[in-house]
């Protein structure tokens, strides 16, 4: 049975659309995956990211790169053929994702979520619905010990999402979910990947929370009980305290990372001070012949 195709239409006379195409190509400039944009379904996915994401380039690279892998490993090099099969039989979309999951059996849930990110978005934007739930129930859920779920949510949500704490604190339950083919949120906090809509002075943007941030959100919502679409994802009464704790934890993490950085730099420096600068001991007369034919 054919399904309706509700995908963004590329109009070359539309300035924004053309800008989106150019931006998608720029995001992949110099990368092998660039050639995948010749496929209209992949271009449409990239275009959606460019148009709705505030800083789209990393998302375009992640989505297209994972579709590229999916095209080789699951579509066996025939992405248009797989799309046609999915349009004729929508269940093929979920079956293809299961084939991807079986191929990578043993990965953690978070790793699997990363691999499935592009394929899920690609199927969706192409108008073929897929299940936006984790493909794996592996060991991806590793809560930070002794850190409240609200703090974890704030800490993890800012990583990679491109949104600030203040922007994320204003997100409501109904602003989080899966996407439909037109790139609109379908409210569902269980969705994976979990898209959220947030606002800044330029208007509304979309982003995805990481798998770990989604897990923190689910833990938090479970502790809060039933909620409505207008409820804040992180209730205001908890948000200020969580924000303070998240900032402190974030500073501590950055400080620990800096300590490691300094220690490694000093150790590396001490080594080269003792050994000599790179290349200082290289003598072409004693080097193996095959290294300088």
């Amino acid at each position, binding site marked *: 049975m054919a399904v309706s195709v509700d995908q963004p239409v590329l109009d070359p006379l539309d300035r924004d659309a053309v800008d989106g195409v150019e931006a998608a190509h720029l995001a992949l400039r110099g990368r092998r995956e660039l050639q995948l944009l010749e496929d209209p379904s992949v271009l449409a996915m990239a275009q959606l990211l460019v148009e709705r994401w505030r800083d789209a380039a990393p998302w375009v690279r992640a989505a297209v790169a994972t579709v590229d892998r999916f095209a080789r490993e699951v579509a066996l090099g025939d992405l248009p053929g797989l799309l046609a099969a999915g349009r004729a039989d929508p269940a093929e979309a979920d079956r293809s994702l299961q084939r991807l999951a079986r191929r990578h059996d043993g990965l953690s849930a978070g790793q699997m979520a990363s691999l499935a990110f592009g394929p899920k978005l690609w199927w969706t934007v192409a108008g073929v619905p897929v299940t936006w739930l984790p493909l794996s129930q592996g060991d991806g859920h590793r809560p930070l010990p002794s850190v409240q779920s609200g703090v974890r949510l704030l800490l993890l949500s800012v990583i990679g999402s491109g949104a600030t704490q203040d922007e994320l604190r204003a997100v409501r339950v109904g602003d989080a979910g899966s996407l439909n083919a037109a790139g609109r949120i379908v409210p569902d906090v269980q969705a994976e990947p979990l898209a959220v809509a947030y606002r800044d002075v330029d208007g509304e943007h979309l982003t995805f929370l990481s798998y770990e941030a989604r897990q923190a959100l689910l833990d938090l919502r479970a502790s809060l009980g039933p909620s409505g679409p207008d409820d804040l994802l992180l209730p205001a009464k908890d948000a200020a305290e969580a924000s303070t704790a998240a900032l402190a934890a974030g500073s501590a993490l950055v400080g620990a990372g*800096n300590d490691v*950085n*300094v220690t490694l*730099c*000093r150790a*590396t*420096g001490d080594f*080269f*001070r003792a050994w000599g*600068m*790179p290349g200082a001991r290289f003598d072409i007369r004693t080097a193996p012949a095959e290294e300088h034919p």
Partner: protein
Amino acid sequence: MSSISTQIDVAAVREAAGSVPDPEIRRTLGELDLLDEVEVVADGDVVVRYHLTSPLCPSPFAIQIGREVRRRVELVPGVRACRVDIHDHFIAADISQQVNEGDVTEPPSWL
């Protein structure tokens, strides 16, 4: 020589130079114990010598740090010009040249 030392507060120069943070990790030269020597070489002229945690430290960081040392030290009362020398770096001469050329009157964007 005694007239020079009364015009420039060496401790203030050391404090100014030591207050410059590493652009990456945001800790200061003073905190990281990377400031080696402050020398008043002539009336109003100062030389600051420093090193970095690694002789392979990326040169953009090394140059940014050195130029900010110059800028801060030249704000110390009595200092007319500051020359900054990095040592123990595999391209120390090139870095020192770039650190000491041109003006350093504007605060850098990375601060």
